[in-house]
């Protein structure tokens, strides 16, 4: 083992990264080698010096501003994710079948006098959940419990809860 390797092994011993037989052999060497013992002591001292020595600092911007940047970025990320979740168009040969099939579907609806129109659902979640948002400024989060007992759409929007007293009377 050359000198450099030995020094690195001493460091590993100090750092607790050398174990087992190798560690035992090195400890035995330390007992008879003053130079290596001194190196071990210095490395231990430097480690002691560095422990917990990270200088505390304060974020150089206000907490409110910091949070506003984070929440904006989160909102933007979620909107991007929804946009990218749109199914991509397939190859040209697939389009040749998909477009006519869509036409067939429309004809079927007309033939069966479908009264409601299919909404342009532009967000497809996992499973059979679909979500459409009409306002990009409203942030939204979705959550389903694993057993689908409850599916939640959380909007960054406050609705007016005040009851219409006349309506309540009529109800």
């Amino acid at each position, binding site marked *: 083992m050359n000198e450099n390797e030995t020094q690195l092994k001493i460091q590993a011993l100090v750092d607790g990264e050398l174990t087992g037989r190798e560690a035992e052999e090195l400890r035995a060497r330390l007992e008879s080698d003053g130079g290596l013992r001194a190196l071990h002591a210095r490395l231990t001292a430097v480690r002691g010096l560095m422990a917990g020595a990270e200088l505390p600092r304060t974020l150089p911007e206000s907490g409110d501003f910091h949070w506003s940047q984070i929440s904006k970025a989160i909102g933007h990320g979620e909107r991007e994710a929804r946009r990218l979740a749109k199914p991509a168009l397939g190859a040209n040969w697939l389009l040749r079948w998909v477009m006519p099939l869509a036409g067939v579907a429309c004809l079927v609806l007309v033939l069966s006098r479908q009264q409601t129109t299919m909404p342009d659902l532009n967000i497809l979640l996992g499973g059979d959940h679909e979500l459409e948002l009409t306002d990009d400024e409203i942030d939204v989060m979705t959550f389903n419990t694993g057993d689908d007992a409850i599916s*939640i759409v959380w909007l960054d929007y406050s609705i007016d809860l005040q009851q219409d007293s006349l309506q309540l009377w009529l109800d």
Partner: protein
Amino acid sequence: MPEEPAYSSAKEPQLVEWAKVGDMQAFEELVSRYRDRIYVRAYSIMRNEDLAVDLSQNAWVKAWQRLEQFHGEASFPTWLSRIVTNLCLDELRRQKRARMDSIEAMEEATGPVENRMELETVDPIEGLGREELRERIDAALAKLSDKHRTVIVLYEFEQFEYREIAEKMGTSIGTVMSRLFYARKRMASLLKETLKRDGLIE
């Protein structure tokens, strides 16, 4: 009257659980509690205020996106610290600071000659408060190259093992050991210089 006692007095695991189901206010409380800590970690590695702020913000956004992956194996700030550390390492990889790195790489790689350089003894100094020592250590860290500062921050402050540092830095354990050894020597030498210069030691 609006009140937020639920958030400010809530324990961290509860805040995390609330945040996981989309409670932004709970997440905001977590940001408020740990933003300085995450910033410190980013600054320790990057040594640039603006970058450290940007990377901290990115780390929080990533944490929000990955909350479902947090299962409490480590504490939340530790988990977040790892995220910001990874972002810093990615940023360092993108940046080229070849000049300083290549000089130090040469110094590190010149084998036996360089490695015979003594590791300075830095004894505890009476009257040198912990705060002042931290400032001197911080000043010395700033003088290291990115590679050497990173390895010492990851080992001493983030408390990664050699193997983990090697993975994060995309290098071998042997290289991590060499860099750490060199970084410690440099730190000791720099600290001794400043202490001598300030007349605190002979």
